[in-house]
């Protein structure tokens, strides 16, 4: 399955770039330079003053199980996609994302997540991002 892989050796947390990934993402997803709309974010690292690190969805799929409207589904490449037409903006996916990568953005109805479009991959001047493959995990829908 496809996901956005971050090379944390190459990404130094925005110290030597202009956060091109965030800008590319918000432009692609919402046609805005306001990086609040970006699905990939450079976020403060807990306990490390001033340090930032990439935070982005790894397509683990836990939110799919949580969504009450089936607005979230994994496509055949394994990418979790959101159907805006049926999303009711409950933000349970936001609260239940294990990596805190599903985000609610003020002013936006549906929450924002990475769709592995690759825009940030091209934009990153340090080549820290790539679209990668990993094995599909066991299905999460539990039998009784």
């Amino acid at each position: 399955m496809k996901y956005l892989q971050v090379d944390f050796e190459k990404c130094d947390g925005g110290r030597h770039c202009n956060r091109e990934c965030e800008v590319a993402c918000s432009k692609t997803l919402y046609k805005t330079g306001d990086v609040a709309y970006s699905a990939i974010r450079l976020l403060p690292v807990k306990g490390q003053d001033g340090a930032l690190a990439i935070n982005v969805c790894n397509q683990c799929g836990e939110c799919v199980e949580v969504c009450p409207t089936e607005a979230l589904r994994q496509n055949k490449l394994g990418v979790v996609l959101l159907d805006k037409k049926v999303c009711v903006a409950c933000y349970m996916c936001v609260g239940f994302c294990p990596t805190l990568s599903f985000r609610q953005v003020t002013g936006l109805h549906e929450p924002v997540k990475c769709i592995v479009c690759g825009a940030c991959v091209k934009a990153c001047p340090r080549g820290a991002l790539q679209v990668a493959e990993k094995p599909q995990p066991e299905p999460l829908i539990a039998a009784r």
Partner: protein
Amino acid sequence: MAEDYTKRTEYTGEAAQMKAAHVLLREVPFTPSLPELGYNNRTLHIDLTTLTVTEKPVTQQMKDIFIGGRGFGLWYLWQAIKPTTKWNDPENDIIISPGPLGGNTQYPGSGKSLVVTLSPQTSIPIDSNVGGYFGPLMKFSGFDALEIQGKAEQDVIVVIDGQKGVVRIETAPLEPSDSHVAAEIFTAEYAETEADRRNVSIVSAGRAAENSLIGCLNFSWYDLRRKATRLKQAGRGGIGTVLRDKKVKALVCRGPQVRGDMNHPADMARITKVATKLHKEIHDFDDQQCHMRRQGTAHLVEIMDAYDLLPVHNFQYGNHPDTKKIASWIWDARFTQGIPDGCWYGCSMACSKGADGHIVKTGPYKGHVVTVDGPEYETAGGCAANCGIFEPDWLLESNFYCDTYGICTITFGTLTAFIMECYQRGILNKERTGGLEMTWGNAEAQMELLHQMARGEGFGKIAGLGVLRMKRIFTERGWGDPQLLQDIGMEIKGLEYSQYMSKESLAQQGGYALTNKGPQHDEAWLIFMDMVNKQIPTFEAKAEALYYFPLFRTWFGLNGLCKLPWNDIEPEDNAQTSEPAKVPDHVYNYCELFSGITGREIQKQDIITMSEKVYNFQRVFNIRMGKGLRLHDTPPYRSVGPVTREEYESRAERYDTQMREEIGVNPDGLSVDEKIAITRRYREDRYQKLVDAVYTRRGWTTDGVPPVSKLQELGIDFPELVEVVKQHGG
């Protein structure tokens, strides 16, 4: 076991023919609208006698004083009925209202409908808080409340179509009234596509509601994963009986495709902030705390047993060695896991568990494969433990039939336990029950009683009148000692007890008996605070708790909220707060939610002030209907102390110690009967002292009447209320 959880008996085969048999009696168009700041500012009134459909404006005064939900229900009911009105008079009104916060899709527990009517059991207003999509979908069609008055001549349905903007009254002669079938068929009939089913919700009752006084309403929602209509119950007080008496087979609401901002809140960001915080809390801590997401309230079964609080054998005892057979881990395995079981969008607490693949053992649906909605704790306590039936499959069976027949599992559990005790004590026997062997643990007899109730036959017909009326009937027939019947019949004001033992908690004795609608724990659950923590040792402290908690909890019902996400999940730092029992951080959330949606800024004290108006209004309403005085706040002795020798002896060390230490009497050498009498005198006296303290704290007279000055202080000194309280020394 990877069984297919979508497999169940289907009932929609003849839906098209059934729908074709409907005759349209009335069709009235309306302009669909969405709320502004949580209110549509109009409600819908339907009179089934005259077949009229009218819109009513919501006044500012209604919003200021009654807020919505239960408040609107009580206000409309007051207008609709007279002091002489009986539950089955046409003017009795069923009011369904979701409240201003209802239908928000972000904050867990925001999809409740509040239902109010004049109860067939208590002859005073009953209010019930229920999940399912009906209330929110009705609100997003354009109405803050629905009133159903009058009586139809034949079985009808009322359809509110918020997509098309039309209200229809149609006959519905062919659909069965039992809810698990009715909800599925009506959903199929009125949803235009498979995807549209989520926009349809049904309110229905069932056969037993037609033939008893203890009918409940089922509110449905369409479960996308299971591809099933699921049910939640407005259980208490016989509302389903009123619905069927009005010859309503179902209320159907087809609302618009839901979006997250349909309440048009004043400040969306404030709502989402507290909502995502709570989702995260539930995600992080539910697994260590209550396991609501896996077990629902059934997580409490073995806990209540451990504290001697699980009612066993009609509230004689508080635990049983077989509780493990119906404990939470059994349900953890029976419930299909990994499904978002919220009774409305956005409820990440997801406690509406379903046991799929139950094969029905008895009755008209024998052999059908069904999804059982539950069991919840109350159902396990009532239908299982209280009747001595510790078999999960039988609990699923009684749970399923109570729901589909449209009767309350709590009431059915308590009244069956009463019958079983009467049987144990020879007050009833096989001849008197028409052949039913109502011995403890006899699940088949319990089910037969239920089927009789549904058919309106035999002893089941008597049982369906509830404990209050059974006591009268047994006494009239000379069966048993009237005092004993009074002592062990677990009802107050005509409503059966819910499933907690209050014997060792004076505060909870008040928590049950000093309620407006009757002994349901949703006003106050103080047992741990009182009995285990010993935090409220004095009468004054107990009275303070019996002032605060009923008012705090009333607020959920004014706003369309569920109580569970308030204190079935606890924030990480709750222990460090000044009043952990109140869960201050969640109280803050509620203020944010209310302010954020309605634009009316409130703080925590305002929650109490808002509720106090409605709570006192309801008390005066009870007085108006002849049942709101001190006399009516008297519990049966079973809920206060040991009635029988076996009860005393089963906990003899506890009672003897109390006699020595609290009463100041040496129990040595006294007979059990003497000790029972001494304990009783002490406990009954202590209860009366509690009542004095609570009435004082609530600002009522010693007879339990809110005086005119209190009504003035609360701004509810309407002439008709003043007149009522003046007649009773207020």
